[in-house]
């Protein structure tokens, strides 16, 4: 990357199933908080990139009435209709060109307004799968989980272990919506079955939520911020549609990860990274994500959890904030991961702080079975 881009401000909302705020207020409050954190005024913004989708928000051109709330009045504005990490990537690219100094990235989803799983049904092939009416993100996720478990000998208990780990982590995260301390594997397995093997506690909860990150060019970042978090690498990739894709591994994430590692000069992710925050919509996805990011060989992801490598006090903590299993505001989930990484690097994560985090990886995904993936590598000074 030619120029260095730093994160100077970030904020997230308290994610809940039904936030008692209008969409406009929800976004406005978080944007205000992030601007205050960065110590800059709205007038100093150069460009604004938002992230939300029309079907999830229930408005065609979902960003159109939010321009004022995100502070984009007479500012360069665009909307990436994907996960927040993709809009972060786009904003970084805009900053690298030098066209603007400061960028605000905003992502939100109102999950309460309309069941996002119904929306996922609207994303499948309208000529084939939508006609059969059985495919949605949960059933497809279950198919993937079953295939993965069958191939690599992973049991339901292994998936439950992931959920137990993340739910336990999320219990001390004040922003998480699903906070269940001391949940046991049996409880996870006994919770309401949706599509076997996926139970309610193995899938991410629907929440409303919003996250904001403010980026700045190196010069600007150093002038306004004591401890900017630098974007060291980023990568993005999309998999083919479900029908023609290898469901057993997340090929797109592998490519995205490699691109990001190369950019950040990381050859051995296990040693070079201090922490990962990944968006796992289902328990099995965390295992597959860890494998695709090179933390374990294919099919061996379960040993990371079993041996405690990825716990909060393990060698390489994954999702100390609880991850998407504790709060999943669809479009914002990836950006929340970035915010969590920044907090960890700056030592602001309070109860779920991991000590000595210098380099962290944030992952965002979008689409059925993690079809689109973005990887961002962040580093402190």
């Amino acid at each position, binding site marked *: 990357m030619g120029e260095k881009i730093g994160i100077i401000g970030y904020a997230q909302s308290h994610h809940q199933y039904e*936030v*008692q*705020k*209008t*969409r*406009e*207020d929800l976004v*406005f409050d978080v944007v*205000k908080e992030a601007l205050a954190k960065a110590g800059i005024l*709205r007038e100093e913004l150069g460009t604004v990139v938002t992230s939300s989708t029309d*079907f999830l928000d*229930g408005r065609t051109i979902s960003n159109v009435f939010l*321009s*004022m*709330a995100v*502070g*984009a*009045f007479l500012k360069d504005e665009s909307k990436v209709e994907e996960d927040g990490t993709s809009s972060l990537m786009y904003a970084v690219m805009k900053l690298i060109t030098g066209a603007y100094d400061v960028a605000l990235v905003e992502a939100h989803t*109102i999950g*309460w*307004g*309309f069941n996002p799983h*119904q929306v996922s049904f*609207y994303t499948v092939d*309208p*000529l084939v799968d*939508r*006609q059969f009416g059985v495919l949605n993100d949960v059933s497809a996720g279950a198919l993937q989980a079953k295939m993965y478990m069958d191939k690599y000998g992973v049991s339901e208990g292994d998936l439950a272990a992931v959920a137990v780990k993340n739910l336990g982590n999320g219990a001390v995260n004040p922003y998480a919506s699903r906070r269940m301390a001391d949940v046991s594997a049996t409880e996870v397995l006994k919770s309401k079955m949706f599509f076997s093997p996926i139970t309610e506690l193995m899938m991410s909860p629907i929440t409303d939520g919003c996250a904001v990150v403010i980026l700045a060019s190196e010069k600007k970042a150093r002038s306004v911020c004591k401890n900017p978090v630098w974007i060291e690498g980023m990568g993005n990739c999309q998999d083919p549609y479900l029908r023609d894709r290898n469901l057993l591994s997340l090929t797109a994430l592998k490519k995205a990860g490699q691109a990001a590692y190369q950019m950040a000069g990381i050859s051995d992710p296990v040693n070079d990274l201090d922490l990962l925050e990944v968006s796992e919509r289902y328990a099995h996805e965390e295992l597959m994500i860890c494998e695709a990011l090179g933390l374990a060989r294919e099919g061996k992801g379960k040993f990371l959890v079993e041996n405690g490598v990825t716990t909060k006090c393990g060698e390489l903590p994954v999702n100390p904030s609880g991850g998407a299993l504790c709060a999943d505001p669809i479009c914002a989930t990836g950006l929340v991961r970035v915010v969590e990484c920044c907090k960890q690097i700056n030592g602001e994560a309070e109860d779920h702080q991991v000590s000595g985090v210098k380099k962290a990886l944030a992952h965002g995904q979008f689409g059925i079975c993690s079809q689109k993936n973005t990887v961002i590598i962040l580093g402190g000074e």
Partner: protein
Amino acid sequence: MGYVKDERPETMMVEGDWQVGAYRYKAPRLLEEYAQNLKNKKIVGSLCMGCGKVIVQPRNICGRCHRRMEERKIVSEWGSLTCFVVSPPVVKGKYKLFGLDPVDTGALKEGEVMIPVFVRFDGSDSNIACLLFNAKPEEVFIGMRVKAVWAKELKGAMSDLDGVEPIR
């Protein structure tokens, strides 16, 4: 000579729907406040303490100053036209809203000529769209002074402000 026609074969179609009506939204109580004030023949707007703009109907956030508009201001029921359009006579079946014909529902009468206008009520910095009554289309001009026409029965609803009419 007219438009060039483009003929091409058609393939079969498969169907699907999108339940737009099943969405839910959260809204602030501003419109409630506005409607309740209409019952007392008052038009309320929100005032931004940053730029001093008064917006009717009240809105929550001033994007110019990026701050909440917490103050309220009652604006005059007198105002001036900033824009007007004369519609052609209403014809049954020509235009439908959500599958309903305005003439069938009794909202409009066949052959009626409407004059939708934008009005800026004195003391406000925004337009309101409504209908102009008691005026002939050829008399209307931009900048015309108008005043609010209130519904016969005030219910505390948006329909209390029926429209505007010229001040004579």
